[in-house]
């Protein structure tokens, strides 16, 4: 060895030692994983022990990029730019299955692994990885740095290594297209071949189920039906049998009149547009001749490319579905409109409900249905240069069926310039156009606020969403009814099993499945735990947004205690996926009661501590009172739900108005606050923590005994123990786990009150083992659409308070 190399060994060791204990990770979160990454910073895990203490807000100050979460195609160009803007040398940790390889999101909008666009040093497996795994990832990176030889690079000599140097993966050569990993060659992924919706002799057809559950309509609905019939005659037709709410078919040209009548004249008035979406009917098995279907029919049985599927009659090409809600008395109503043609056109209803704007843009983007008269009909969620309409049945669902997304794609597909979103001049005054997000500490996720600033004043604001679009509605059409449950956990990733509940209620309503009382109680208890989980994180981050750092340290401490209980009961943390069709995955474990009681006692005291810090704090009040005011009328018009609606003074909670899962058995209040400002939203949420504790306490003390799974084994997965004893259980276990249960043909919409508001699942079944259409009515979508109303003409600093107080979460907005 030469003398100078001997010298370099010493300097290498010194430099590496300094580097590996002083990381500067960038504040960069993509999705669920970031929650666990940020938990690694809090007191229990204390990342600072490993020399990576403070997350830096900008790439200029960072040398470590942790890609925590899903790599969205819309976000990939931004990730690449942020990486390029980091100084040398720099390292990359890929955190979580999505970032490693696409994970469970093999879907059109997701890049199948960050290593196709960036070099990666360390991969952390898990979905999401636990905070301990983040610590281990960091230690592994430290080990890796020990092997680097930086001195020569630093002294501008040849040789030497520092930072990430691994080449990025090349699709088809170093990167497998099979997201399940190696060894599956020749086995088609589930959902593409086994039983696609168009597979006419699906084995599910051999299974018999009773017809969909039917309800008896309320007198009120019957009299309204009579009035509608008199007024609109043949243009409106009531669906004779329905599983969830009164349903009408309306002819296309009269729908706007009907909607207007329902909103302004009918009794009760249907004031809120709950949801607007569409269904592509082209793959219906009993309606369309298959020649009308031009999608990629992979495994169609037949000759000469012609299908052997029988022609059974003609239906519409698309169905538009409007869900309306009346507040007083509480009621729901569904309107369906059949549309014909590949690119149908219909009328906009943005002049009736301003909130229809985003819904119509989404429907336009996903189905290619045009809305005549819409003021701004362009893509909402996918990148502006995207081609095709993903929720059409012929559109490939999987990313692995599409052209691979590579480094070159990330360079090519740049996001739309901010100037296209906002006005750039106000009178003579030029405005400063500023992007806030998608990577920003204050935006709480991948959301892009485009601002036009006149000094500190927000003269114009527009939102660019879709950076977190995981195509979950498309996935719902290929995963079996059971397999879809884990995807629901990730829709509102702070909501955990509460998401399972929204989805399962729809399926159970449709199939008429009775859930045993014990299971209902456990469902309620866990849902309330996750409400507290969300509100604790919200409390810390919201206070942080307006300048109070302390609460984060306290609320995350209690949250960890809560997570311990969730782990004790379900075995998971963020995404337990623990509810099942007809009940629960298993019974409560030993020792749950003691843990729950202890938590209720502790948190009840600690809320007092939190409030002592914040509620009367003059700085906090100055930042929140009178800021971001939303009037009750606007809130109702725009479909705002949850704590944000209650902060406008309306006592409205689905748990009370449409009780589900036995909520009618519990004593609790609906907290409200007047004013509709950030402070009112704060007050409502803090009180909600208390009310949730009350519910948990009651559920724990009155927990009934008995089974936690319905005995209707047609839908339920039987207990594993029973499968070893009797053949019936074994058969049902085998069928329901592999092929999945068949859900009768029909449709159902149910909504639950999750921590952010009303989350509804509209499931449409064509009588198969997977949904024909899976629509998620997300509270965040409506809550966020109204934000420009609150932020416009306010100060830039107030926007941060508004964002924090609205409490949105990105996968719930973009889905």
């Amino acid at each position, binding site marked *: 060895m030469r003398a100078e190399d001997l010298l370099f060994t010493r300097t290498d060791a010194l430099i590496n030692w300094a580097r590996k204990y002083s990381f500067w990770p960038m504040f960069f979160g993509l999705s669920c994983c970031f929650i666990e990454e940020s938990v690694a910073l809090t007191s229990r895990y204390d990342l600072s022990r490993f020399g990576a203490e403070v997350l830096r807000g900008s790439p200029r100050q960072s040398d470590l990029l942790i890609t925590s979460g899903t790599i969205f195609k819309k976000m990939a160009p931004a990730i690449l730019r942020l990486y390029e803007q980091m100084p*040398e040398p720099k390292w990359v940790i890929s955190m979580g299955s999505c970032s490693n390889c696409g994970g469970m999101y093999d879907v059109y909008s997701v890049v199948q692994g960050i290593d196709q666009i960036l070099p990666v040093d360390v991969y952390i497996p898990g979905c999401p990885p636990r905070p301990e795994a983040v610590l281990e990832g960091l230690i592994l990176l430290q080990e890796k740095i020990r092997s680097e030889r930086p001195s020569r690079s630093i002294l501008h000599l040849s040789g030497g290594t520092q930072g990430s140097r691994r080449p990025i993966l090349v699709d088809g050569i170093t990167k497998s297209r099979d997201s399940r990993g190696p060894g599956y060659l020749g086995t088609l992924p589930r959902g593409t071949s086994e039983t696609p919706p168009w597979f006419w002799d699906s084995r599910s057809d051999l299974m018999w189920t009773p017809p969909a559950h039917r309800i008896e309509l309320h007198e009120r609905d019957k009299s309204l039906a009579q009035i509608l019939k008199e007024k609109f005659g043949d243009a409106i037709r009531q669906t004779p049998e329905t599983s969830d709410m009164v349903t009408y078919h309306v002819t296309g040209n009269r729908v706007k009149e009907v909607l207007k009548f329902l909103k302004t004249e009918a009794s009760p008035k249907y004031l809120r547009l709950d949801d607007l979406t569409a269904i592509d009917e082209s793959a219906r098995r009993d309606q369309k001749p298959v020649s009308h279907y031009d999608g990629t029919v992979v495994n169609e049985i037949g000759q000469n490319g012609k299908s052997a599927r029988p022609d059974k009659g003609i239906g519409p090409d698309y169905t538009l579905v409007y869900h309306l809600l009346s507040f007083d008395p509480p009621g729901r109503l569904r309107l369906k409109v059949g549309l014909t043609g590949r690119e149908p056109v219909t009328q906009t209803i943005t002049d009736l409900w301003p909130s229809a704007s985003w819904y119509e843009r989404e429907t336009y983007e996903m189905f290619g249905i045009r809305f005549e008269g819409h003021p701004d009909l362009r893509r909402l969620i996918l990148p502006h240069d995207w081609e095709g309409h993903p929720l059409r049945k012929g559109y490939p669902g999987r990313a692995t069926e599409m052209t691979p997304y590579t480094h070159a794609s990330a360079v090519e597909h740049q996001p739309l310039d901010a*100037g296209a979103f906002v006005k750039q001049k106000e009178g003579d005054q030029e405005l400063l156009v500023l992007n806030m997000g998608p990577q920003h500490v204050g935006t709480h996720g991948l959301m*892009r606020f485009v601002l036009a600033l006149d000094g500190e004043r927000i003269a114009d604001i527009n939102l660019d969403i879709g950076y977190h679009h995981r195509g979950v509605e498309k996935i719902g059409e290929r995963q079996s009814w059971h397999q879809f449950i884990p995807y629901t956990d990730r829709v509102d990733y702070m909501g955990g099993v509460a998401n399972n509940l929204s989805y399962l209620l729809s399926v159970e309503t449709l199939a008429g499945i009775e859930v045993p009382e014990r299971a209902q109680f456990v469902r309620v208890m866990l849902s309330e735990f996750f409400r507290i989980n969300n509100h604790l994180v919200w409390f810390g981050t919201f206070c942080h947004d307006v300048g109070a750092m302390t609460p984060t340290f306290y609320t995350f401490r209690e949250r960890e205690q809560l997570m311990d209980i969730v782990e004790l009961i379900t075995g998971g943390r963020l995404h337990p996926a623990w509810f099942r069709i007809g009940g629960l995955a298993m019974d409560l474990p030993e020792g749950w009661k003691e843990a729950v009681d202890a938590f209720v006692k502790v948190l009840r005291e600690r809320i007092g501590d939190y409030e002592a810090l914040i509620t009367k704090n003059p700085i906090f009040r100055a930042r929140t009172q009178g800021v971001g005011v939303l009037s009750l009328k606007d809130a109702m018009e725009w479909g705002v739900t949850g704590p944000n609606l209650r902060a406008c003074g309306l006592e409205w909670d689905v748990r009370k108005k449409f009780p589900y899962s036995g909520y009618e058995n519990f004593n609790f209040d609906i907290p409200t606050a007047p004013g509709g400002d950030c402070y009112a939203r704060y007050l409502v949420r803090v009180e909600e923590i208390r009310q949730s504790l009350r519910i948990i306490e009651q559920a724990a003390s009155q927990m009934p005994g008995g089974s936690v799974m319905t005995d209707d084994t047609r839908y339920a997965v039987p207990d594993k123990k029973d499968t070893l004893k009797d053949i019936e259980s074994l058969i049902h276990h085998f069928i329901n786990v592999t092929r999945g249960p068949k859900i009768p043909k029909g449709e159902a919409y149910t909504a639950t009150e999750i921590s952010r508001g009303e989350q509804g699942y509209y499931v449409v079944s064509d009588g198969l083992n997977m949904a024909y259409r899976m629509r998620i009515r997300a509270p965040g979508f409506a809550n966020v659409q109204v934000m420009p109303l609150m932020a416009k003409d306010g100060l830039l600093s107030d926007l941060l308070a508004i964002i924090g107080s609205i409490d949105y979460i990105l996968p719930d907005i973009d889905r």
Partner: protein
Amino acid sequence: MEAFWKPGILTLGLYAGLVLALTGVLLFLCSWLGEKRGTHEKQRAYECGMIPSGSARFRYPVPFYLVAIFFLIFDVEAAFIFAWAVAFNELGWTGWLQIVFFITILLFGLFYIWGKGGLDWRTKVSRPS
């Protein structure tokens, strides 16, 4: 000769030289040792991962700047007042009258700025106090 060195010019000079040399060495080391890759994206202004829109060089209303300037003016004035306060006994009533005159003119300035709206943030939002 001895009198010339008395106040310690040599030490001062040495000190100044050392400071300059150290700063120079540090700046040189930073710029030479650090790895540099001047790619196109690297040179671009950072704006939350997006490509910045338009130019930042235009007439831009900056209330912060106004407040900073006003602060500077009144800050410099404070220096005079402190100087007067230290010598209060020596200056006597004449000094007192002079400083009152000085402060009055300053106050006129403040009221003028106030009246002109120089202390407003130019926002249309009305916020309850």
